[in-house]
């Protein structure tokens, strides 16, 4: 199995590579469920997190994944001052190169930032979200969660609803899901679902209710509240009426549909609490699976080949 130096996105991965990561995440999850969550696998190694956008949840997940594998997780504080002083990503890359780092986990507001870093570094790079481009580990944990509950995803109907235009989570999920054979529908208001998104090769729909019948999974995207101020939709209330998920609306699927959300949730806007916290809600599963999937990615990128949990 060919393994890359970096994980930058799912668009460039083959279905087999995606399956391999998901397969590797299974034993990782078993480790997580043990009372003593610690492996000696990567003892003495360090992974570095470099978060230009605040995200406690994703960063903590990566840090925990590294620690369970026995590696040290070092946070490179990106002080706003050094950014403001004009220290460029290229300068940062040079510094990291000089530090002989093994693996960098980066989140950045610019699409392509992770790939940029990977091009300038010998170290491996994991994209923890780059602009509106990709967020591969989020999609992998979503795929893992769906597979765990539904088995093979071929032919399964997955609806991703919300601010698709600005969502790296949606893009990565579309690539991953279609590679694994799922049927994907993207739903949202026209201002957040412009026609050029047809390039992703899946169905676009403004009418969520019409798409719901038969859906195996509905994933609500987090709605950035600034989008309303930018005029992309008139009010949270109107958004919620057409695209907010609640139990009554979800009856239309005719199934025990899984509800996913990448978090943090705007309860009562894109998702109602009764649904998020109910039996169909996968949000907590997603958090656990996130650590497992990130363990798998870190393990594979750091050259892990042996049976880790033997």
């Amino acid at each position, binding site marked *: 199995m060919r393994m890359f130096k970096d994980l930058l996105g799912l*668009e460039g991965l083959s279905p087999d590579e995606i399956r391999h990561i998901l397969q590797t995440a299974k034993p990782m999850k078993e480790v997580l469920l043990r009372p003593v969550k610690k492996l000696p696998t990567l003892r003495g190694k360090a992974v570095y997190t470099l978060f230009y956008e605040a995200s406690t949840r994703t960063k903590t997940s990566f840090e925990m994944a590294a620690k369970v594998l026995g590696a040290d997780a070092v946070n490179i504080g990106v002080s706003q001052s050094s950014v403001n002083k004009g220290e*460029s*990503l*290229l300068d940062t890359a040079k510094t990291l190169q000089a530090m002989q780092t093994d693996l960098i986990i980066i989140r*950045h*507001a*610019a*699409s*392509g*930032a992770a*790939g*940029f870093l990977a*091009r300038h570094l010998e170290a491996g790079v994991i994209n923890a979200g*780059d*602009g*509106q*481009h*990709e967020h591969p580990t989020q999609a992998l944990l979503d795929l893992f969660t769906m597979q765990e509950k539904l088995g093979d995803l071929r032919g399964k109907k997955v609806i991703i609803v919300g601010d698709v*235009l600005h969502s*790296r989570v949606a*893009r990565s999920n579309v690539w991953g899901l279609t590679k694994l054979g799922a049927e994907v529908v993207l739903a949202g208001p026209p201002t957040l679902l*412009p026609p*050029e*998104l*047809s*390039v*992703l090769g899946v169905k676009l729909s403004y009418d969520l209710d019409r798409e719901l019948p038969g859906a195996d999974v509905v994933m609500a995207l987090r709605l950035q509240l600034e989008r309303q101020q930018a005029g992309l939709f008139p009010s949270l209330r109107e958004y919620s009426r057409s695209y907010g998920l609640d139990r009554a609306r979800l009856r239309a699927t005719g199934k025990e549909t899984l509800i996913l959300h990448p978090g943090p949730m705007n309860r009562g806007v894109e998702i109602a609490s009764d649904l998020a916290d109910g039996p169909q809600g996968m949000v907590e599963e997603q958090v656990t699976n996130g650590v497992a999937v990130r363990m798998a990615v870190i393990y594979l990128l750091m050259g892990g080949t042996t049976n880790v949990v033997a």
Partner: protein
Amino acid sequence: MWWLKNIYAVDPSGSCGKRDILIREGKIEANAERLSPEEVAERAGGEPVESLNGEGKYLFPGFIDAHTHLREPGQEAKEDIASGAAAAVKGGFTSIIAMANTEPPVDSRGLVEFVRTQGARAGLARVYPLGTVTKGMRGRELVEMLDLKEGGAVGFSDDGHNLQNSEVMRLALEYAKLTGLPIVSHSEDENLACGGAMHRGKAAARLGLKGIPSSAESIMVARDLMLAAETGGKIHLAHISCRESVRLIREAKERGLDVSAEVNPHHLLFTDRDVDLFNTSLKVNPPLRSEEDQEALLTGLLDGTLDMLATDHAPHVWEEKARPFAEAPFGIIGLETALAAVWQRLVVPGKLSPKRLAEVWSLAPARRFGLPGGTLRPGSPADLVLFDPEWRERITSDSLASKAQNTPFLGQELQGFPTLVWVGGEPVLRGRQLCPAGDGVRHR
């Protein structure tokens, strides 16, 4: 005196064919089908004659680039007038028009004269300044257009920014009538373009980059044309990039408006499908658009809707471009590569004739901006380009005379270059090497 024998001369103001051409005292002395040694000796009047066999070569009137950013004063790390003028003659341009968005912007007569002086000191291509339209390029008060014209400005532009205030644009078009010079418009609705990094379309959607819709340009083109119609003003539309703009300009010309327009070579040679997240040398404003837009641009250039080619040579420091795509500045350098690239990809395949090439890159800018050049008629200034269609060159950071290297052709080999360039009858490029003037200043 120079005697160019049996060379394929492309005269956009006349005809094309094999010619014998004499250059003497800074001017084209003769342009005839064949000259005898006796005739030549008589014309030389005792002066030594340097003769040159032009077999297999083309002779063009010097190319004129109506849109360059030379960055001086203020941003000399990117480029200066001397390095820009050197890049120009290496690429076959004997005259270049310098945009006014420097630091400070060229909004006074003193600065116009400074740009001209620096051009003369460089002694390579002729450098013609544009003045800004508004003081400080702030989009409010008009510059002293008459004074700037007396200082040598050949037009007015706040290029780099669009004049968002339509009333200011209207006033500029009215007032500039006193000068007879065109207002050069960078047509861009800043609200529609806001924050975008590339053309709004499928490629941007796939890459997760914010798009700049075609309407960001065409809406302002429509506005500018309406104001030109209302005022009877003289307008030149810079870097037209999309189909809708071409249609609007075509209609405006049918109605007889005093409008001209340019297209940049990169918009004819690349589309948004060539853009990836890492090649920031393809990040340019207006952005590389769709294939349909590209087709409309070429059609427009061939049918005369678009009058001229212009590079929009926009140098940047390497580190500024070595950033994630969304954070890199807009701009492509073109002076040293544009002619070769257009030759290779448009002229050689027969999409653009050598004569049309000379019309749109020499005659049209000369006429529109009132510059000498654009012709091979005897008596005209000998700004000439000997072009070798076989000459191949690899574009590298070392080979470029420009201080910048933000070109999509970096590392590639191009074919078809000027091997001898005269400005005012003096060689400024010979065998691909620059020939600076002896005393540092060329007095023309």
